[in-house]
């Protein structure tokens, strides 16, 4: 158990060290959410077609596109797991004293570090676009903790998918196929209320919706009534995915 906890923190440290040497990926990945905030948001708010309550449309979508980009990042983090299988890193990690479950969960959670840094790049751009955040550091920190926790689950999705996809090329395709439905069938760009019933039902099972809802509450609206449900949903999502990823991990190494 102690080995496993230690392994978890070492994986986080590894990610920090990687980022210290090279953050190019994060800068390029920030382009997409920045485009949503700088172009899509202002253009759409001009037509006032989407009911977002009292808050401006750009403010409304900022948490959504931020979470979309961190989710993207985490899903593609699975690519790195595939890469590590092709190389010997995964084999060597499996021969260390930590359990293989700790390795899976540790590697997944480490993607959360990247997600946090991604957020830190996007937020200043949102500030420049005069998005109004709730001026409460505790809320701000909580939002990032939630992003971190949810990231592990999304990375685990990619580990699960990677265990079925034996080549990188196939995985690139499946990555897109997972992320876009999650994004469009969520409350990231529009409130769930205006969706057709079938999408509303889907959204109830969409982890992305819960994450966006929690982060939007903490950063933009200050409405925390759904927060306990969101947190519970994220926790359940993480646990289920960690279990599935750990079980399917066997396929990756054989």
């Amino acid at each position, binding site marked *: 158990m102690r080995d496993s906890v230690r392994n978890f923190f070492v994986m986080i440290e590894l990610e920090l060290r990687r980022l210290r040497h090279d953050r190019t990926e994060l800068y390029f990945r920030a382009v997409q959410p920045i485009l949503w905030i700088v172009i899509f948001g202002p253009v759409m708010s001009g037509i006032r077609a989407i009911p977002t309550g009292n808050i401006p449309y750009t403010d409304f979508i900022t948490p959504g596109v931020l979470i979309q980009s961190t989710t993207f990042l985490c899903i593609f983090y699975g690519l790195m797991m595939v890469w590590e299988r092709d*190389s010997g*890193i995964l084999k060597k990690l499996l021969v260390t004293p930590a359990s293989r479950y700790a390795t899976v969960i540790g590697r997944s959670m480490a993607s959360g570090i990247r997600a946090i840094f991604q957020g830190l790049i996007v937020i200043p751009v949102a500030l420049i676009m005069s998005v109004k955040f709730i001026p409460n550091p505790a809320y701000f920190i909580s939002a990032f903790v939630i992003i971190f926790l949810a990231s592990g689950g999304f990375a685990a999705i990619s580990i699960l998918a990677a265990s079925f996809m034996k080549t990188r090329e196939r995985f690139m395709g499946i990555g897109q196929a997972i992320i876009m439905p999650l994004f469009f069938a969520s409350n990231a760009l529009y409130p769930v209320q205006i969706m057709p019933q079938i999408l509303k039902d889907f959204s109830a099972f969409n982890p992305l919706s819960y994450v966006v809802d929690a982060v939007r509450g903490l950063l933009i609206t200050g409405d925390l009534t759904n927060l306990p449900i969101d947190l519970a949903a994220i926790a359940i999502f993480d646990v289920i995915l960690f279990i599935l990823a750990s079980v399917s991990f066997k396929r990756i190494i054989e």
Partner: protein
Amino acid sequence: METAVDVKNLVKVYNHKTRALDGIDLRLESGIAFALLGPNGAGKTTLMRILTTQLRPTTGEAYVFGLNVDREGGKVRRLISYVPQEMSVWTDISGYENLLIYAKIFGIPSHERKQIIDDSLKSMGLSQVANTLVKAYSGGMVRRLEIACAMLIKPKIMFLDEPTIGLDPSAKKVVWETLTSFKKEYGVTVFFNTHYMDEADLYSDRIAIIDKGKIVIQGTANELKRSVGGETISFDLAGNSINETIIQKIRGLTSVRDVMANSTELNIISENAETTLVEAMEILRIENIPLEKISIMKPTLDDVFLKYAGSRLETTGRISEVTHTRDMIRRG
């Protein structure tokens, strides 16, 4: 002597059809260097992956220092270190950081960490590039870093899958000299797979040849070579023939297995060419047989391999293939 590895009738079948290991029996004492030689697909890597608890055997049992690799994997992993054939370091951090991450994973106490890492880097000749990103390392430097990593903890047994593949001769020598002194100093058992006959010959105490999932022969390098047939001494008789009495005399010498003669050549097959040579020379001198030249031919591990695995071990193509793959991975 403690038993380091004990394998009993080990079978591994992949996907219900590919029989990678077909009844392996192997027993190794601790503190030795053991080389497993075999052609591609013979099962070398599979055996190593089972012993390092990555794969479960289909049937049969394997023990490392008395611990069952299947049921007591966690305990086994505390005793071993492992260098896979493929590249196993992170290229986007420095060499020092790679070792630091592994030192932490292995739970080396913080006050010892720096010293241990510096020592490993130094013994592998990497101190100069410790803080350079691994991306910028040559293939040989990467391999040395991987071995340094396996030396961080003082394992009871080290598993090395093709440890020196793609290294130039001088780097190879450095690696083996370090491994040999490491083995001596800490009593570490070294278990390695290799394609290099010379490496198995020079640096191992015991060799096994594996082919089609079975161990076809095992023993020390000398035992294996002797098993192929003796060493041959050839005398060029400069056109003089020798009579049957002389042949009988030579046949009577200790270590001599067989003698063949014709008008131009005398061939003696012996278990120990050097001593037989002295004795045979003496007989020929007494009988006044003039000699033009003498040559000794000893069987090599290559001959051993040819006899038991039925083919020569093709190394060149295979090595360039692995090096190429490693390079591709390194460049990302």
